[in-house]
């Protein structure tokens, strides 16, 4: 078979697959109450001053949701940012960053969702639930986040089910990931999962995670998470702990947010605070410490900030943090805005 013939056949196969997919999507839209494809995500503009270093960073993170039939959801999220750093001469130099956060297909049944593709590693709660900049209460990423592999490429089983009573819900995720060295979508060969128990009454969730890396020095990580939202006050407390057996150490963060909804003129203001500690692995060599960067030294950090909700989807944020680390003490200032957009990319037939 000649090369041109092979290409023609590949193009025809792609076209055919696209037609089949379009047909399935169109069939899913027949009923006026069927879900439609949606483009959502967020844009943000933040100015950061990190130890005197000024940065301006506009960014956009689009997420395409494509429901197919009654059980399937295809979702893909990307990110694009341009970080302008102020030089000693006063001019700004921009560095473009881009990536594919996830691109996955989910087959949803009553008790289990089967996921395939590139997905966020189900470890703890920060990566999967809190990381989007329109969600996170404080824009700085916790020190322990890089301890585990944040993205995976492979398959996952997950779901949430009542734990034999309406007072307790059980959620779980188990995954396997292959190694991928492409710089945009790099992943480790690893396996692991997470379990959690959610008590809807007191609005309390506790859970644990595990990850076993299956390459290089094969470290494993274990973690715990906790979320509590008391019914009586608009307070949320979240926390995570992680410990790795390899060279990446251990640490925790605890964060609380309080919405001033009981004060008429301040009801759109949310106060946030976070404390965290990171403990570097003992007996690291100088070369390893240099290679690990921030994960090579002990650190403590305290942050406080406020968010003002102009609307539920438009928010202004400001925060101050103090990092205490050997040779790296720093003041961390952040101010900026986020906008979360939701737009159907198919006629919705009206509604609200």
């Amino acid at each position, binding site marked *: 078979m000649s090369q041109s013939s092979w290409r023609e056949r590949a193009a025809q196969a792609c076209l055919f697959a696209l037609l089949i997919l379009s047909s399935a999507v169109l069939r899913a839209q027949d009923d006026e109450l069927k*879900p439609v494809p949606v483009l959502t995500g967020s844009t943000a503009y933040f100015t950061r001053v990190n130890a005197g270093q000024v940065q301006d960073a506009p960014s956009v993170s689009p997420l395409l949701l494509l429901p197919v039939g009654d059980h399937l959801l295809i979702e893909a999220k990307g990110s694009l940012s341009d970080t302008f750093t102020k030089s000693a001469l006063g001019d700004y130099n921009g560095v473009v960053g881009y990536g594919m956060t996830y691109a996955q297909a989910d087959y949803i049944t009553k008790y289990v969702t089967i996921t395939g593709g590139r997905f966020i590693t189900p470890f703890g709660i920060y990566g999967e639930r809190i990381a989007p900049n329109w969600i996170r209460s404080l824009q700085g990423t916790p020190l322990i986040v890089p301890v585990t592999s944040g993205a995976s490429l492979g398959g996952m089983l997950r*779901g949430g089910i009542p734990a034999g009573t309406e007072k307790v819900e059980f959620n779980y995720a188990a995954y396997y990931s292959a190694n991928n060295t492409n710089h945009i979508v790099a992943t480790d060969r690893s396996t692991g999962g997470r379990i959690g128990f959610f008590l809807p009454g007191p609005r309390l969730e506790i859970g644990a995670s595990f990850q076993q890396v299956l390459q290089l020095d094969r470290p494993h990580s274990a973690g715990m998470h906790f979320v509590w939202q008391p019914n009586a006050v608009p307070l949320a407390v979240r926390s995570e702990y992680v410990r790795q057996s390899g060279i990446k150490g251990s640490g925790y963060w605890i964060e609380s947010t309080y919405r001033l909804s009981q004060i008429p003129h301040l009801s759109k203001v949310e106060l946030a605070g976070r404390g965290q500690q990171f403990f570097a692995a003992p007996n690291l060599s100088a070369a390893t410490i240099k290679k690990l960067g921030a994960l090579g030294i002990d650190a403590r950090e305290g942050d406080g900030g406020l968010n003002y909700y102009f609307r539920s989807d438009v928010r202004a944020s400001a925060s101050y943090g103090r990092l205490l680390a050997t040779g790296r003490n720093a003041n961390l200032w952040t101010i900026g805005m986020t906008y979360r957009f939701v737009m159907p990319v198919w006629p919705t*037939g009206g509604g609200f």
Partner: protein
Amino acid sequence: MMLALVSAAQTAGDSKKENTPAAQTISDGSKEAAAPVNQLSQDESDRLEGEKRFHSNCSRCHAAPPKFPPRTMGTIVRHMRVRAMLTDQDMKLILRYMTK
């Protein structure tokens, strides 16, 4: 899918109707009046339960979003079913609350 979800939620709620206060009150009156009042009571009960589950699940991570058109909401709730690992029943009740 929405119709199926609403239908399933209604079916699941049928068994509880006899015990609702509204159902007990109207049991003394005419049977003709009972059906609509019963249905109203069940709708209100589901709406309240959906609102409760919406607040307990969604606000664990983010501020309450506005209500979008039903077909858009169907997609978002399906996404959140996966992301936040909602139970099947939570998803149905939240979807019903967010599209009423």
